[in-house]
């Protein structure tokens, strides 16, 4: 990171949106341009508000939300209605990164919306929403640039880099009219159809760079991280009903294997195939554990099928070409009082009881070199994970996988808790169950989306070395006891 700062400087300098060029968070700002966010004036950029801030808040809201929350959880079946909000997630990509560090200050008024910002829920077309919402933000920079944009390009082939940050002085003019996309990096170029700036060539944030979704009681957030140029993780969350009408909630998280070709396509295909399989089999009455097994097989077939397609992108990356698309998969189902998990690879599920005095647990066993070393008794966990081969996975979905071995497990929790479904981009920064529990904000079971944002923030603060994806599923024990269960916190 330190090294990157120096290189960052130029890029940052061009991003007037970021007020702290030398900070370590710089890459984050420069890469995603989170000023585009629909979240207006944020008081500060404190990256971590994770555990310190919330504790103060929860005590007060806890009781009242507690009453409010249980209804939502049981009503999970109703949740399908919110798919309207679900549509908001494409929009979220633009808002994205800004949300992660977002402090709790929004929580009081709009718990449900703080993910996408309030204007977004209604309109999926985020771009058009931006301008209206932006003015209060760091609009000034952008506005300024929009003018110079025309002035600078002419022959400013020289060092334009320095010119960009300065214009900050100017006043917010709502120049970036609706529809006009301005480069998040230099603020002066328009964005070409290929997604690059017409002035500085900078790649623009893509939809998948940051994705959020909240659906009833389940929420997921995925982020590109700070060191990768694209997000190769993917997720799917959904809810359905068992034949008896009781709710079933599903979360699938996949991590594309970078050394294979088109890992981003692999993870997206796997997550969506597994999700669809579950949405079909669970309402039919298939036992959730069996359903999970079948879903993993279906996901595997979807990834295998990608190997036959010609490369989607025109990039010819020799070192990637040998391998068929591949990814990991981890999923969780809450249905009929059961918690079913399934996985292939090194993405994980953790259990964090609402009553933090109880022990948290990791519910999955990695298909990885490190896990095998530990299992074989050749190394202890600390040694194994310190090794650079730790992350070499021994199981994955993809055409060149030797033999698909889906792992599934079923649990019947006796107390309420939070199910954390994540990729190694998160658990690298909270490996043990205790560390993960410590990273989960106390009120996460009531505000899973916010909790997921905080966890992604935790990974980014830790260095964000990989793509980060996490889904949170609050698990309530009994419908009628749920209220009290939550308040027992």
């Amino acid at each position, binding site marked *: 990171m330190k*090294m*990157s*700062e120096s*290189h*960052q400087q*130029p*890029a940052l300098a061009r991003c007037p949106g970021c007020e702290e060029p030398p900070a370590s968070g*710089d*890459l984050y700002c*420069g*890469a995603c341009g989170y000023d585009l966010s629909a979240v207006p004036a944020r008081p500060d950029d404190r990256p971590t508000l994770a555990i310190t801030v919330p504790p103060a808040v929860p005590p007060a809201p806890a009781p009242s939300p507690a009453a409010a929350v249980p209804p939502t959880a049981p009503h999970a079946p109703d949740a399908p209605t919110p798919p309207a909000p679900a549509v908001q997630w494409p929009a979220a990509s633009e808002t994205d990164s800004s949300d992660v560090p977002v402090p709790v200050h929004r929580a009081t008024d709009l718990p449900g919306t703080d993910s996408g910002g309030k204007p977004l829920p209604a309109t999926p077309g985020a771009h058009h929403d931006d301008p209206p919402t932006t003015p209060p933000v760091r609009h000034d920079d952008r506005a300024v640039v929009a003018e110079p944009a025309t002035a600078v*390009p*002419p*022959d*400013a*082939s020289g*060092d*334009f*880099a320095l010119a960009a940050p300065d214009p900050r002085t100017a006043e917010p003019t709502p120049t970036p009219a609706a529809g006009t996309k301005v480069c998040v990096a*230099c603020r002066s*170029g328009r964005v*070409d159809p*290929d997604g*690059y*700036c017409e*002035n*500085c*060539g*900078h*790649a623009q944030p893509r939809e998948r760079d940051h994705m959020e979704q909240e659906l009833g009681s389940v929420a997921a957030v995925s982020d*590109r*991280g*700070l*060191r*990768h*140029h*694209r997000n190769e993780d993917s997720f799917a969350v959904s809810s359905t009903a068992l034949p008896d009408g009781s709710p079933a909630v599903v979360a699938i998280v996949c991590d594309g294997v*970078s*050394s294979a070709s088109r890992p981003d396509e692999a993870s997206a295909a796997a997550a969506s195939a597994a999700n669809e399989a579950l949405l079909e089999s669970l309402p039919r009455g298939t036992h959730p554990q069996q359903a999970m097994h079948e879903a993993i097989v279906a996901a595997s077939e979807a990834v295998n099928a990608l190997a036959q397609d010609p490369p989607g992108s*025109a*990039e*010819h*990356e*020799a*070192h*990637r070409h040998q391998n068929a698309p591949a990814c990991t998969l981890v999923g969780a189902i809450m249905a009929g009082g059961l918690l079913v998990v399934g996985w292939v690879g090194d993405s994980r599920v953790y259990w964090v009881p609402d009553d933090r005095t109880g022990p948290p647990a990791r519910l999955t066993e990695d298909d990885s070199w490190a896990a095998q070393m530990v299992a074989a008794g050749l190394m202890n966990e600390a040694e194994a994970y310190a090794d650079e081969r730790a992350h070499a996975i021994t199981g994955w979905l993809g055409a060149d996988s030797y033999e698909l071995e889906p792992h599934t497990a079923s649990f019947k929790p006796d107390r309420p808790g939070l199910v954390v479904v994540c990729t190694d981009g998160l658990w690298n920064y909270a490996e043990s169950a205790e560390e993960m529990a410590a990273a989960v904000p106390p009120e996460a079971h009531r505000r899973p989306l916010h909790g997921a944002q905080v966890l992604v923030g935790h990974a980014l603060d830790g260095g964000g070395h990989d793509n980060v994806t996490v889904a949170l599923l609050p698990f309530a024990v009994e419908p009628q006891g749920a209220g009290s269960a939550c308040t027992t916190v």
Partner: protein
Amino acid sequence: MANFSKSNVPQFSVEVYQNAFLPEGGREVNAIVTVTSTGGGTTGGIPLPRAAASPGQVPGYGPGPGPGQGPSAAVVLMVDCSGSMDYPPTKMRNARDATAAAIDTLREGTRFAVVAGTHVAKDVYPGNGQLAVADARTKAQAKEALRRLSAGGGTAIGTWLRLTDRLLGAADVDIRHGILLTDGRNEHEAPEDLRAALDSCAGRFTCDARGVGTDWEVKEVTSIASALLGTADIVADPAGLAADFTQMMENAMGKEVADVALRLWTPVGVEIRFVKQVAPTVEDLTGRRTEAGPRAGDYPTGSWGDESRDYHVCVLVPEAGIGQEMLAARVSLILPDPSGAGAPQVLSQGLVRAVWTDDMVASTSINPQVAHYTGQAELAQVIQQGLDARKSGDFDGATAKLGRAVQLASASGNQDTAKLLSKVVDVVDAATGTVRLKAKVAEADEMTLETRSTKTVRVKK
């Protein structure tokens, strides 16, 4: 005309081969851009005896090509008639025969002329300062005129080119092409005169150049072909002229679109290190850029038939942090608006990207295409340097350079060049590039090697 040329333009496709990944602090981005043009509605070089089209053509009016026919073209044949062409007399006779064969290859309706070159240029057919329209009658007349050609006088190639330019410039056609044959040095005008003539003709027509025998200057002939975006070659034995001329004319007849340019757009702060054509021959285009709007420049590529060429683009991008991605260059093939007023037509385009990563495996791997053509460009260079060293008596230098050439040619599978090299050096070990200079080298072999040193082979895919 605009419509016509548009309908006839072949499909261009652009493919970019590169490793976009850079390490932290990395700035140099290399890419091989493969441009392929296909299907312009022509026969791809085979002359079209379109009987139906020629009758009914009113002489003096453009033989406007009908639908499905090739584009309108004009070709001028420049034949060296200097005194040396009579030594031996077979040279002049072979040149006449070759020119006749080339005329036979002309597509009906093509405009053409024959220029006899000495210390002055004279259009010997049709001879009225204009071009003839190819049909059975004019072809016969032209061949009759060739029989009256005789050798005598000096050599001033610049004057030949200027006359050709005047003749071609008057014709309202899509493709303008010259074919030039010389057997001697350009002794009767100053090198600057030839240079000036080339500068004034560049971009106005394309020209293939051939040296017959061994008394001509390789660098003169290759510079003509290079400036006018044509091919250069040696025809050491005059008996081979007819076949070569026929081939050249077929090639010219296969051209479907002229004045195609490679446009390179780069973002602010990106520096262009070089732009080279690397296949079928190495041709550095870096210095031939003409600005085309903000941060964009055009590099001439001449006329295209059904063919494929590779370009090596190398740019320096500003440093950026790990995880960043930028567009390093946008490469497009463009065709100027025929009227010169409108916006050029973009035929196809490709993107060159830069992505910074801390994955060492990704950032250190070299794209095989880039590696291959980097080697081919070096091959052309070391042959040139080796032959220059040999001429200047620096035999150690020549041995080292030609040894390296043997090594490169053998490693890349450039058989033709390897064969040519083996006539100049004795190869002890090709893999290590260990060679000995041959004590006796035929002049023709050395000239052939030098002329063809820029020919490359494509990477096996």
